């Protein structure tokens, strides 16, 4: 307990002294998340790797259409100091370009290819980030962008089975009706994202 907290302290100290952090978020004693400027990311990764965060667990990405950004999340792991670090940075959504980090973490090569496939983020420096990795012969926009409509794609590509009539029957018993109603309201209330 004590030890892990000290890990987090050590980490915050390390990061704050060398970079200007946009935001720091201590999720719990084993997870810390730093938001950085795009230019600081490489330096931060090098620092952390030297500090013992030798494992690049994953490179994830989040699409924020309304602020027109794509957020890249580099997840690092240290086996001496049990803390997962998320290095987050936002790149422009219209032309997302992030220099590759395969010189720091060679294992990131395939994560970057995957990220290009699903979000369209370009990684100059990675020799073959444009090669297809998972989606074989994909012919549409990157499928994990928020504005990609999987339903439309599925309707376009895959033939649906037609049914003569709609088999959905709603029984009119009251208790069932109430249940349905409150389920509907709860679903509505969850739309905004804030909890009740």
């Amino acid at each position, binding site marked *: 307990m004590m030890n892990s907290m000290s890990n987090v302290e050590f980490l915050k100290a390390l990061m704050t002294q060398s970079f200007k952090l946009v935001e720091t978020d201590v999720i719990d004693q084993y997870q810390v998340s730093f938001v950085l400027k795009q230019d600081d990311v490489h330096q931060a990764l090098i620092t952390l790797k030297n500090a013992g965060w030798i494992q690049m667990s994953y490179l994830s990405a989040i699409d924020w259409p309304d602020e027109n950004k794509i957020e890249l999340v580099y997840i690092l792991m240290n086996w001496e100091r049990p803390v997962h670090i998320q290095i987050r940075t936002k790149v422009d959504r219209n032309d997302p370009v992030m220099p590759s980090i395969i010189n720091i973490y060679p294992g990131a090569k395939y994560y970057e290819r995957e990220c290009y496939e699903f979000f369209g983020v370009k990684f100059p420096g990675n020799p073959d980030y444009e090669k297809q990795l998972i989606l074989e*012969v994909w012919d549409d926009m990157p499928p994990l962008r928020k504005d990609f409509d999987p339903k439309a794609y599925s309707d376009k590509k895959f033939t649906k089975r037609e049914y003569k009539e709609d088999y959905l029957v709603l029984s009119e018993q009251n208790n069932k009706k109430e249940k349905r109603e409150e389920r509907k309201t709860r679903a509505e209330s969850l739309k905004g994202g804030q909890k009740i």
Partner: protein
Amino acid sequence: MKSTKFTPARKLSKEEVDRKWWEIGDFFRRNSLWMLMYCTGCCAIELPPAMTSAYDMERLGMGPMATPRQADILLISGYLSVKSLRRVIYTYEQMGEPKYVVGLGSCPINGGIYHDSHAVINQLDQYIPVDTYVAGCMPNTESVMNGFVDLMEQIRNKTANGWVKYKENYEWYKKNQKAALGEVIIHDEFHE
């Protein structure tokens, strides 16, 4: 007085002989069905109880087989992503005739809960002919066994002829596969 003229037995035409042989073959085929389990999705979990002592599948003469060459049934258990559909088609074309396809679960029927996914196909029988569907998400083991018994019945009444349909409407199936998959055989760095 009744005439005792000897009337020779009618000579069977070649088609009739072939049909008789085919019926004899059908008897053997429906009593020893070997499956190639393409465990694509979650419905595969229903097969262990079907094979082990709960519902002993071997009593119907059925059993799992290692390769498509040896198998009679191609068992599509669960949702079928686009990538695995390519492999399924490749496997199906390697099987020896006559061959049957059984689709487990609702995903091969109409996409099931993945009906709007960009990676999962919705209707299997557009791409390869399916002889028996077992509906349900997931179908419980009785219905799985029942599906196999139904397949045997179809073989008995000669309605399980999906492989014939596939040969006859080959272009149609190929067109659907092209439309959904782009190309079936993949060339890339992982397959050279």
